[in-house]
């Protein structure tokens, strides 16, 4: 059902033009944060106002929208944003990664490989990767202008000095096309390799911080590391308890008060479609999968 009395996809035409101009410059300067006039949206900062504005600027009547929150299509942020666009833009929605033309995401990249023509829209809380090291915007702007990213290497080195390894596990800084240091948004570093030379166009929106940035398709995205401490991603000892996948990012799920727990795919659509295809994991068909609402029988 579409809501009347709103502009298509909520934002007014002038705001969209401003955003579209910013997005085109963002694509032309990969990884560079373009300022834009962020509008007040009908949900609070921190709930994806940047991502929503970017989605509203690109979305058309023929698009198929998928929205995920930490990999799941069914959590509150994802459900709300999907319904928001179903009502204000009357677009088709899906939870299947392959069917979507626009995918708005909070903190994950889907496990299924992205294809050319798809647009990823990331919700970004803090677009400036060096903000915790340098609070002044004028200074970080200068550092970007000079491509002076020694700060960030020192931070990663301090991790090594203190813990013996780089302890940053999410929002892991990346270098885009060998020039701009970029925050990949708080995705787990497990997803960082998917940013590199992705066939999809990747757009990032930060509403409170009023910045958009982009990674065009087939663009080099390298996670920062050192020769003797190369970048590596998380690994788990066991596969997904429900679908048996050993190549996906797993969430820990607490099952009871007695220390029971299991690890399941964070990407709910990937997990469900694997189960439909007949894949099973150690905890398939027991109470736990029914409780998560992910068993093949329940959907």
């Amino acid at each position, binding site marked *: 059902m579409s809501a009347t009395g709103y502009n298509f996809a909520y934002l007014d035409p002038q705001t969209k033009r401003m955003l579209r101009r910013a997005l085109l410059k963002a694509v032309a*300067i990969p990884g560079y944060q373009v300022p834009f006039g962020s509008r007040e949206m009908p949900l609070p900062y921190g709930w994806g106002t940047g991502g929503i504005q970017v989605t509203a600027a690109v979305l058309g009547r023929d698009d198929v929208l998928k929205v995920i929150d930490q990999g799941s299509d069914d959590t509150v942020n994802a459900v709300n944003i999907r319904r928001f666009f179903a009502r204000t833009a009357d677009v088709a929605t899906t939870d299947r990664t392959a069917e979507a033309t626009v995918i708005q995401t909070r903190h994950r990249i889907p496990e299924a490989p992205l294809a050319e023509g798809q647009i990823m829209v990331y919700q970004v809380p803090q677009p400036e990767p060096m903000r915790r090291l340098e609070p002044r915007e004028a200074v970080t*702007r200068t550092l970007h202008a000079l491509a002076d990213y020694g700060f960030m290497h020192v931070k990663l080195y301090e991790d090594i000095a203190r813990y013996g390894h780089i302890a940053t596990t999410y929002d892991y800084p990346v270098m885009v096309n060998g020039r701009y240091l970029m925050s990949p948004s708080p995705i787990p570093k497990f997803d960082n390799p998917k940013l590199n030379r992705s066939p999809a166009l990747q757009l990032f929106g930060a509403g409170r911080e009023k910045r958009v940035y982009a990674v065009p398709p087939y663009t080099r995205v390298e996670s920062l590391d050192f020769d003797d401490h190369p970048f590596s991603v998380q690994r788990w000892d066991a596969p997904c308890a429900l679908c048996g996948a050993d190549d996906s990012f797993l969430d820990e799920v607490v099952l009871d008060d007695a220390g029971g727990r299991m690890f399941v795919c964070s990407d709910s659509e990937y997990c469900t479609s694997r189960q439909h295809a007949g894949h099973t994991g150690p905890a398939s068909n027991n109470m736990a999968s029914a409780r998560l609402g992910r068993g093949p029988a329940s959907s």
Partner: protein
Amino acid sequence: MTAPGFCVNAPLLPGFAQPEDDAQRVFRVLLDALSHPGRIHTVPLALEAPAPLATATGAAALTLCDYETPLWLQSPDAAPWLRFHTGCPLVERPAQARFALIDDPATMPALADFPQGEPEYPDRSATLLIQVADFTDDGLVWSGPGIDGETTLGVAGLPAGFWRDWQRNTGHFPLGIDLLLVAGDRIVGLPRTTTIREA
């Protein structure tokens, strides 16, 4: 700007039939074009833009320009149409422009005459829509972000020395201007990150 040679009573051509939807569809073409440099895209609507503007030039201007975007026109004939439909201010000098429409590349200003952005704000640079004669299958090899390896595409109707100018533009990255090359209703994106060499 010098008084454009048009009759004040001449009827203006219409703009987009469906302003919201048409602008969105054209924007996606422009976004696609700049995301995949060297690939020919077609503007999916039948817009009659006033001479000397091509369909794609007119559609891009209606999509991106408004009162916030100073526009530089190489020839003033389409000024009333652009002023009426977009409300954009027209500027005298290329250095003031956010967007520029070029209909005769042979006599266009040097790329360096347009705003290049600032080291802290490289986005504050001009975007040029340049109308060329045609696109051909080969002649130039394109590479850079948005291109899977290399792609080939020739452009007919650009002056000698243009690609040397372009090389200088890419050499100043992150500063520089971005181009959209237009032939009729076809459009090719050329952002500052794309390097071009002769085949």
